[in-house]
């Protein structure tokens, strides 16, 4: 009789353990499935400036006016889809206003623009050929990144920019 009771209690314990395991499996698997479907990777674009030799150590500090000099601009697209970018190059000074929400358009001279198409999870380098026809000290050569908005059908400033300080002297 006591043996029968013990067997019954063992069976009950086994049932409790089994139901616990099943509940745990259901909870863990549902959490995994939820995180899998709701996984949102961070979407972002990037802009980087490199010197003529594709390094970050030898940026020009002084150039002569009306004389070409070269830089490389690297644009990265991690927005989750193909994107068309506009690199707007302007020349400003210490009074030029540029920040995350306002481009330098109103307070700097427009120099040049480049359109660049970049696939998702890729980056593309463009060779920028610049020649500035003015003499100015302590100027800022600004590179702004704009993205084409396919709904509004126009470019929107991404709040991303980079710059180098440069002196432009008169060519002899």
């Amino acid at each position, binding site marked *: 009789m006591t043996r029968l009771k013990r067997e019954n209690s063992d069976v009950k314990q086994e049932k409790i353990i089994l139901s616990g395991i099943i509940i745990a499996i259901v909870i863990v698997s549902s959490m995994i499935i939820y995180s899998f479907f709701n996984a949102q990777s961070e979407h972002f674009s990037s802009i980087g400036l490199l010197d003529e030799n594709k390094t970050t150590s030898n940026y020009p500090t002084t150039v002569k006016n009306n004389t070409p000099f070269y830089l490389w601009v690297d644009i990265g697209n991690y927005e989750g*889809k*193909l*994107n*068309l970018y506009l690199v707007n190059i302007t020349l400003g000074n210490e009074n030029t206003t540029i920040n995350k929400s306002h481009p330098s358009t109103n307070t700097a001279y427009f120099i*040049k*623009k*480049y*359109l*660049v*198409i970049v*696939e*998702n999870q890729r980056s*593309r380098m463009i060779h920028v*050929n610049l020649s500035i026809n003015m003499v100015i000290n302590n100027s800022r050569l600004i590179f702004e990144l704009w993205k*084409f908005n*396919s709904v509004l*059908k126009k470019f929107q400033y991404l709040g991303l920019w980079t710059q180098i300080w440069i002196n432009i002297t008169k060519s002899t």
Partner: protein
Amino acid sequence: MKMKFKIISIILFLCLIVNISQIPENGHQILNHNVMTRTFSSKEQAINNISLAENAIFNATIKLQYLESINGIITDLVGRLNFAINLLNNASEMLNMSNYNYSVYLSKMALGNVTLLINDINIRIYQTNLYNQQSISMFIITVVIVSISITIAGILIYILIKKYKEKKFLNMKITLPEGDQ
């Protein structure tokens, strides 16, 4: 006299009709000797062509984004769009350098390339949609076939087990307790 008057009135009427026919819908009369034949300068042509090429590139981008969203293959098309964009960048540069004729040439090349590219993107979108529809159909057919197969297999296994149990039951030896013998 009457005849002359009739002829004159007919001529006047015909002149009026001819004159009216030269008035376009917006009511402005076109006078041939006043028509200004305006030829676009190279600079204007370059600006116009660059603008047209830019708009074409925007359209191509929108179409490529759509193609990408329906899991179409875009790598080769992006390469071609990049080529057209480089042409357009060079055309803009030539415009800034006042090399207008070369700018017109490059912008026209860019426009031509993008126009062809847009046609190819449209074809690719059609092909991808067709492939996706076929894939969905194949998936549904596969699911139905697999479900039916599993159901049939389950029924067969059930029948086999049942038969096996019946056979086992029939082959069982009945042993009675000692007191009942």
